[in-house]
């Protein structure tokens, strides 16, 4: 077992039990206590836990609370996708972030980068990044929500989009299929994605495992309009082949 795996196990343990002592961790992980202490040091530096005598206690930060309030399905997969998508963003980028929980998770880490401007219709995203980045632009419209994450939706709001420049657009979708392309279950979302695919230089689709071979109600864009797909699913040989041949990047997640 190596470091990244041990860290995951410690994190899961702490989220479940709130506290952990070194002797329990050494027997679960089957490593020396020196190794466990080094892992705890790293997690303390990342502000995930607080070291106490003989063990550690979970840091109840705002982030952890927000997550449990929103109750995101397939959370582990989505957060890995968000972490990996973050590596595609460079300083001074102007990006669009779409509605949904995966996009929200992406926005949580954007503050780490400098000079980023975000255009979004995802209210949770705008709350998350506002003040910590160069510029935040929230599109207006009627409020709707997906799984507790509110977003604005209005044909008129798309008009204002046409005046703004973004070089990267991150969206999540309801379905991706080799023949049908990317699809959504609501007409509003489909229209939004269609519009974005035409104005953004690159379109990056965040798709967890459940979305593949799934066809939603409305077609949002063809496969050819996608630049990159970030997913946690690794067994899709036909998708790997098709994307490579169509010059589309396929990134599969790992623990960073």
């Amino acid at each position, binding site marked *: 077992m190596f470091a990244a795996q041990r860290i995951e196990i410690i994190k899961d343990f702490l989220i479940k039990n709130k506290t952990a002592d070194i002797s329990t961790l050494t027997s679960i992980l*089957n490593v020396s206590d020196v190794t466990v202490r080094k892992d705890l040091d790293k997690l303390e530096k990342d502000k995930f836990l607080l070291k106490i005598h003989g063990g550690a206690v979970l840091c109840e930060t705002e982030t952890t609370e927000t997550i449990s309030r929103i109750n995101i399905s397939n959370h582990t997969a989505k957060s890995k996708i968000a972490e990996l998508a973050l*590596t595609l963003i460079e300083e001074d980028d102007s990006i669009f972030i779409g509605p949904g929980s995966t996009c929200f998770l992406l926005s949580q880490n954007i503050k780490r980068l400098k000079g980023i401007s975000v255009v979004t219709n995802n209210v949770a995203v705008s709350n998350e990044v506002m003040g910590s980045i160069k510029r935040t632009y929230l599109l207006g419209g009627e409020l709707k929500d997906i799984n507790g994450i509110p977003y604005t939706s209005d044909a008129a709001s798309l008009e204002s989009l046409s005046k703004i420049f973004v070089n990267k657009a991150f969206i999540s979708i309801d379905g991706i299929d080799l023949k049908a392309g990317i699809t959504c279950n609501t007409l509003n979302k489909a229209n939004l994605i269609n519009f974005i695919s035409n104005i953004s230089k690159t379109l990056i689709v965040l798709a967890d495992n459940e979305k593949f071979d799934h066809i939603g109600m409305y077609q949002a864009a063809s496969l050819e309009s996608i630049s990159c797909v970030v997913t946690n699913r*690794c067994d899709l040989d036909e998708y*790997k082949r098709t994307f490579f041949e169509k010059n589309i*990047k396929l*990134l599969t997640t790992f623990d960073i």
Partner: protein
Amino acid sequence: MPSANTIRLQNIFKYYGDHTVLNNINIEFKQGQIYCILGENGAGKSTLAKVIAGIVSIDSGNITIKNKQIHKLSSSLAAKLGIKIACQENFLFENLTVTENILINNEFTFSNSCILNNKRNNKKAREILDSLHININEKKLIRDLSLPECKLIEIARSFYDNPDILILDEPTAPLGITETENIITSIFEAKNRGSCVIYITHMIQEVSQIADQIIIMNSGSIVINKKYSKLDSKDYFLRSMAGEDYLNRYPKTKAQKGRPLLQVKNISSKNGAVKNASFTLQSGEILGLAGLQGAGKSTIAKMLFGLEEAIAGKTLIDGEDINICQPRHGIENGIAYVGDDTLKGIFPSLNLIENIMMMSYNRFLKKGFLDSEAISIEARESMHYFHMNVQDPTIKISKQSIGTIQKSNICRWALLDSKIYLMDDPTKSLDIPSKVEIYNLMNRIAHSDSGILLISSDISELVGMCDRILVMFKGEIIKEFKSGESCSKDILNCSFGNIHNP
């Protein structure tokens, strides 16, 4: 008098597994003309040559030689029809003399005598060597000759008896200037005698000297087939050879660059393949190494891992001067080596789990015995972590797919917490899904505080996946390209030895 249409190839296809090596080839070769075939590594030039010479069979299509359609072309039939080839690899018998090697496929096949080394044959060999201005004693054994001398004998063998169709695959690569000039003169003489000469090369300079017709191949297809004109620009040829840059297909992510993991200063190899090379590899970086075959790329990796001897220079790992004389030193210092032969790195009769864990067994010693349960658990966890989804990991590894085998070649090093990965053409024989998986695996490695030296003959792959690319030429590193500053065409041009853009 042979017919004007000496060879015609129609709708030729050749596959190696998933890979289309020759893609619908349609071409004619006529007597008294010199055809130059150009293309990148892997374009299919050598395969095409071998198909004409009967060494490689085709999967579909028609071959017509001297107006006769040939249903199954073998190398002996090709020789009987007057087709001779000097391949890139030297097919010489080390323990025989020059005379015996020159005549063996020419005289022996058609004569009753088993003795080649007699006065008459030596005289014949001497004649052909003299006509090609080759100054080698015909009685010498091949094993006593240098590499350029062996190449000259290989060429002499193909010229013997003035074949109607002469195929030369990169004949002048190891030769010096005078020897190259002599070969070129001989080629003109062959043309004037009415032979059809098919000349495969990387060197655009040679093409301008001899070509009547220029053929450019890319990814198994013929993209250009035209009369050579001095007005054609070098840039035009380079672009046709390199093809379009489909770079977005490579799943490159940027990892944080950290400390210099590996610093190489002025190293040279004992076998002369690498001269005075220097570079640095940082953590988080994928550093590419480009160059023609024989430029020294593989030798650098072998030197860093202790498989080839270094005679000069310093290697620093994490700032410390380390002497690597054998692989054990490489392994102890966190260096991982994935060689260019996927199947050579495995234990074929053992299963996937055993192969992945082979280098980590010492961690599982319990009172002198191996804790097989713990080994099995860690192996399965690792396979899950590296997305190796196999139906049955307990069967012989040689029965697994080549993609899985290559992944296991990389994973076994990750279990040792290696930091410096030397990868030599890691995706060479893989199908597309496996290639994509290996690229994503490289990202994972780069993001875990490690660095990768990626040696590849696929220039697009280098441009797509690397942060920086070093180009080697004749043993030296001649230029460095940064990601975003380079395209395939420029790197290809540089690999021919040209530091400045055309």
